[in-house]
């Protein structure tokens, strides 16, 4: 049943009034959104005032999707929600055709939502608004607005709990060492953190054995698992689970435990290369020095020979010749 349709185009009624209206309408017929839950929030009137008070403390989340008749792909919007809040979803549809001929529906996953939405038209744009409250994980999921003309145009709002970003690359550590696995949640404060270890397909909770595991939760938005005295079997997948009021989120960290021999191999390769190069360079230096010495000795020998020949040539030529040889030798 569509409520308040037509070209009223006026301001939407105040939240409290609207909620009261929603409650009244909901009490008139069973709610389709929470059909599985026995503790449906709209059942008993005496709880209404309590609910209203509680709801007014929640923040309001407003989200918008724009569609045109030419939109080829369905438009999706991902919304991250951590705490219970009031939600207002608006879809607007622009078309050149007749607005009255457009059929507007809202669905949660595949179930049709029968009430709680407004339809409004201004000029050539059709607005539809759906308001509800998310209190627990059952209200999370995908909410879609549909505009049926010749083609069906769809806009989807996906509600999810904040995701945990585990590391894409494995954490490396060594046998006998200790390591710290960190799980962080940006801009969110979970209620609780738990650690699991996957052994094949089985998930085993990581207990707090005093000597082995230490869980440190100093800051609310991160958790640290310190594992001491690592063994090779300690390697594998570790999961950190964050519990929110609206659901759970998981992060994955891979731990690899290596033995000390692994980095030693490249290290020894480099050391061998260094020793080899140093030996080659020092040997080259000794070789060139020996060659220089030999050539020096050769030159000295020649000078001695020349002096001897000068001696035999005559005394007059001796003095200037000697001087010339000496200066040449230096």
């Amino acid at each position, binding site marked *: 049943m569509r409520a308040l349709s037509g070209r009223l185009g006026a301001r939407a009624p105040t939240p409290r009034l609207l909620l009261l209206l929603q409650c009244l309408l909901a009490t008139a017929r069973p709610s389709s959104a929470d059909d599985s839950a026995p503790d449906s929030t709209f059942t008993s009137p005496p709880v209404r005032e309590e609910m209203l008070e509680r709801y007014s403390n929640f923040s309001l989340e407003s989200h918008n999707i724009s569609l045109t008749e030419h939109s080829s792909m369905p438009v999706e919007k991902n919304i991250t929600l951590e705490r219970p809040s009031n939600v207002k979803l608006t879809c607007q549809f622009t078309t050149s055709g007749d607005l009255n001929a457009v059929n507007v529906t809202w669905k949660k996953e595949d179930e049709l939502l029968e009430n709680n939405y407004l339809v409004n038209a201004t000029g050539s744009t059709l607005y539809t608004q759906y308001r509800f409250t998310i209190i627990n994980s059952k209200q999370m999921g995908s909410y879609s607005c549909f505009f049926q003309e010749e083609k069906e145009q769809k806009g989807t709002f996906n509600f999810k709990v904040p995701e945990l970003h585990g590391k894409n690359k494995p954490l490396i550590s060594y046998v006998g060492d200790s390591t710290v696995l960190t799980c962080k949640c940006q801009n969110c404060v979970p209620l609780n953190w738990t650690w699991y270890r996957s052994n094949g397909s089985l998930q085993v909770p990581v207990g707090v054995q005093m000597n082995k595991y230490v869980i440190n939760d100093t800051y609310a938005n991160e958790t640290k698992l310190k594992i001491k005295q690592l063994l090779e079997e300690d390697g594998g997948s570790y999961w950190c689970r964050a519990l929110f009021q609206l659901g759970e989120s998981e992060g994955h960290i891979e731990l690899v435990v290596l033995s000390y021999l*692994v980095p030693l191999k490249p290290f020894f390769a480099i050391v061998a290369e260094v020793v080899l*190069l140093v030996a080659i360079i020092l040997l080259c230096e000794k070789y060139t020095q020996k060659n220089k010495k030999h050539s*020096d000795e050769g030159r000295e020998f020649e000078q001695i020979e020349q002096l001897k020949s000068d001696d035999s040539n005559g005394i007059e030529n001796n003095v200037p010749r000697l001087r010339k040889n000496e200066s040449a030798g230096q």
Partner: protein
Amino acid sequence: MAKVHRARSTSPPDGGWGWMIVAGCFLVTICTRAVTRCISIFFVEFQTYFTQDYAQTAWIHSIVDCVTMLCAPLGSVVSNHLSCQVGIMLGGLLASTGLILGSFATSLKHLYLTLGVLTGLGFALCYSPAIAMVGKYFNRRKALAYGIAMSGSGIGTFILAPVVQLLIEQFSWRGALLILGGFVLNLCVCGALMRPITLEEDHTTPEQNHVCRTQKEGLKRVSLYSSLTKEWAQACLCCCLQQEYRFLLMSDFVVLAISILFMAYGCSPLFVYLVPYALSVGVSHQQAAFLMSILGVIDIIGNITFGWLTNRRCLKNYQYVCYLFAVGMDGLCYLCLPMLQSLPLLVPFSCTFGYFDGAYVTLIPVVTAEIVGTTSLSSALGVVYFLHAVPYLVSPPIAGWLVDTTGSYTAAFLLCGFSMIFSSVLLGFARLVKRMRKTQLQFIAKESDPKLQLWTNGAVAYSVTRELDQKHGESVATAVPGYSPT
């Protein structure tokens, strides 16, 4: 006939084995400066593993930098007394041991000692002797050789940073430190390349050598009669140190030292504060990182091209002025920085600053060699790099304090800019004063005894044949112009 073993003294080869020395120095710069910069990549790992905050882990980098610069004179002393080869190989072994021991660390304090002090000491033993060695092997092409050798820090950081990141991902920080220790062992290879060379200049200052030797022999005789060998050793040491460090009393060197203090104060904060400043002005994280990369790459280009440029015939005699110009330009860039408030303005700033930063780094050893000559170059470079240590340590925290108190980066950048401009103005002023004094000397020389003039004429004839950047040749040649060599 007795064989006379003569030490072959030569003039600087300017090529040949000199290029192997340049390659060795290039590798030394990679293994010391680039590895120091890459240590900061380990900080995130140390923070998670030791659960300490950023300030505690950042101390490691400061300790390495500080110890490397503070112990630079020790490095030159060791290489002067043992030999350059032994000094650098020893440094390589020490640095490598520090890194290897660091891979077994169980607390941050262990890392301070091993990775900080031991590795820093090892680097100090390698850095200044290697640079001094390049100066010994090159004369005409000194600036180009230094340009290529000093570009190692930029190129090394560029290559080593992703490699270190990969090592950490594959082997975690312990394995990465171990392998890095192996890599740093290549300093021993560089050490082996540093063949000693005796230069002609080593024989031109015989007076002090003679005095020292006679002193030694006198004391030796005394020690024969009394067992005062300790006093003899002390006196000998004093004499040797006096001889090695006599350049400290030169007015030129004192002026250079003061200007280097101011220059080092000015240049270090930019690398720390460019990214935060860019972020505060509205630039995104990736664009700020891009600015830093530009700075690094243009630094390398500045190193090599400025070295090549100042070796051209037109600029050869003006290397000192080029150094002044580079430092002054960097100071001017700093002064303009507070006015640059967007990315399209910051990119040219990065390019200019990076270029001149690379430029003056290349010319520091050249200018030092010009002032002290090649014999004392090793010790002088030790002192010069020692003078870099305290400003490097002190300047970023002072700039940070200024930023916190004034709420903007303007004061900090202006202070650094003025510091660098003062440094270059001081050098320019000193040069001017020296030139004025020389013209006075010329005036006096013209009016003196003509016989003396003839005698000085002979000295000019002898020294003009040498390269003009020998200290004696230059001063004598300019003092008595107008005489042609016979």
